[in-house]
């Protein structure tokens, strides 16, 4: 090391590389704003009252909307949540509170396996166990998405329950509460913010999935009554309309894309602000 300080070359490399990493970061953040902005410009102005209240019209006619897709997505997600969240939540309790280490690692391993299944393959699975017996339906779509929700529900439940201090549990049991009582009235409420935000993130993730719905919910140009009929959903409408040669459909695809993205981002932002509540650089 010369007494005179750093060589010009080292300083230049330093400045350049640090600058480059900054550029990369700005680029990454910029892409998000680009996507949002582009969707808004292309589709935001098509978001009129019709879009939210009318049914699609036949090819070639102008106007119409995606009201049935909005309701369809809501129903499929409702069903998915009622399947995925309870199973994941209860299993998460089991792993965090009751189970022995050996069985727990088996469950975790298998859940990781399930999490690694590509979403299109989950679609095939739902097709073979539900559609072949009951036809294309909201039910099949809900099952497919529900199965996708289980692994994340389990992992986030386990993680947040484990983060509750042991002292809380011990305190409750010292007062005579049974284990299940302790969990229900002390541990879960203590972890509730994390649990809720975890569920919201989970929901936002499956809300955007298209592939598993392709051969489960199929699609519907009308309202889909009940749970055993095919239904339109927002992501599958986007896919169908984007590929079509009709300008009017493209316009609606952008509008639907913007709606979907806005909802997903809103849920994400809400969920994360529930957990973090303004902490910085804390390990999550």
């Amino acid at each position: 090391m010369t007494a005179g300080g750093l060589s010009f070359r080292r300083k230049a490399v330093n400045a350049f590389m640090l600058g480059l990493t900054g550029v990369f970061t700005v680029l990454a953040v910029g892409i998000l704003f680009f996507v949002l902005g582009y969707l808004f410009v292309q589709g935001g102005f098509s978001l009129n009252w019709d879009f939210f209240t009318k049914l699609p019209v036949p090819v070639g006619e102008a106007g119409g909307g995606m009201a049935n897709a909005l309701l369809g997505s809501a129903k499929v997600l409702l069903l998915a949540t009622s399947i995925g969240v309870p199973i994941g939540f209860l299993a998460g309790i089991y792993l965090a509170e009751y189970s022995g280490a050996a069985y727990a690692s088996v469950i975790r391993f298998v859940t990781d396996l399930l999490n690694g299944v590509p979403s299109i393959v989950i679609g095939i699975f739902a097709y073979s166990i539900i559609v072949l017996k009951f036809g294309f339906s909201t039910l099949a779509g809900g099952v497919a998405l529900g199965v996708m929700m289980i692994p994340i529900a389990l992992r986030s439940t386990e993680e947040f329950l484990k983060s509750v201090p042991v002292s809380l549990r011990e305190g409750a049991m010292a007062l005579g509460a049974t284990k299940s009582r302790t969990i229900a009235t002390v541990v879960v409420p203590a972890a509730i913010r994390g649990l809720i935000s975890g569920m919201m993130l989970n929901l936002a993730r499956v809300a955007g999935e298209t592939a598993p719905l392709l051969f489960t919910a199929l699609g519907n140009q009308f309202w889909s009554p009940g749970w055993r009929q095919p239904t339109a959903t927002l992501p599958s409408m986007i896919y169908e309309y984007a590929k079509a040669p009709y300008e009017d459909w493209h316009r609606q695809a952008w509008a639907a894309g913007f709606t979907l993205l806005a909802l997903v981002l809103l849920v994400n932002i809400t969920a994360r602000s529930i957990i973090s509540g303004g902490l910085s650089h804390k390990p999550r």
Partner: protein
Amino acid sequence: MATATFPQAARLSRRASLLRRALSGDSLAQLIVFLAATAILALTALLVWELWSHSGPSRAKFGWDFLRTSTWDPVAGEFGALPFIYGTVVTSLVALLIAIPFGVGAAIFLAELAPPKLSDAMTFLIELLAAVPSVIFGLIGIFVLVPMLTKIVPGLKDALGFLPVFAGPFYGVSLLSAGVVLSVMVAPFIISVSREVLLAVPRDLREAALALGATRWESTWDIVVPFARRGIMGSVFLALARALGETMAVTMVVGNTPKIAASLLAPGYSIAAVIANEFAEATSDIHISTLIELGLVLFGVTIVLNAAARLLILATGGKVSQ
């Protein structure tokens, strides 16, 4: 204790406490959560079994050759998976080649250089990018990226057209386009996890390097990053696993052509894309069976990668948040 002298009372009180426990639902609760956990085992077993059995005809007919042959001819009943495996691997590799420098670079900036509040805010936004549905990336892919590439590629070909990877005509939809879209989709994972593992590197290492006269960059690149190497590799594997299974964005921009070409500018196909396109309309049992076998292949590869990812990340003390 009093109960010792009154055996009957002892028995009664034992039964009462058993009853109390049952009524208070503790055993019941334990049973319920146990069943929930076991249900997951059963469900996954069912899934694997369904995949295995429905792919039976294909496995019996083609054996290992399935993975080696490249003819995909539904009319003649010849099915070879190689073009799809090739396309899946190539698009994912292109995605990583782009996403790794960008991702690790951005992670370095966020972990080492940016002031904490700015770092948190930007990381938050980048993690939101991970939440964007893939069909939207597909939309932007066809309507924005492909026209953009159609303008850029002629210039690229002038400079590098002698390389086999950039040979041949470019029609917009291609392996390259799919790779670029995928890179945007997987970069947030690399950034997020790499940032975590870099933050987990002990302060002293940096300070020691700086005290010895290293520049900021040198201390980061030569000391901190190697220390976090395993975790960064783990994030790369996670990104790869995501890229392999990605369906919608890929099928909208890859060209959907089951051919193997050396050039990235050629159209291609991926396992997930062919399943999405052909499953509902496969009109012969053997065709469906081969598609399911493809799904099984994809599943297997994704599992291995996910496992490797987690091990590597844990080995450097990072947290696998998902």
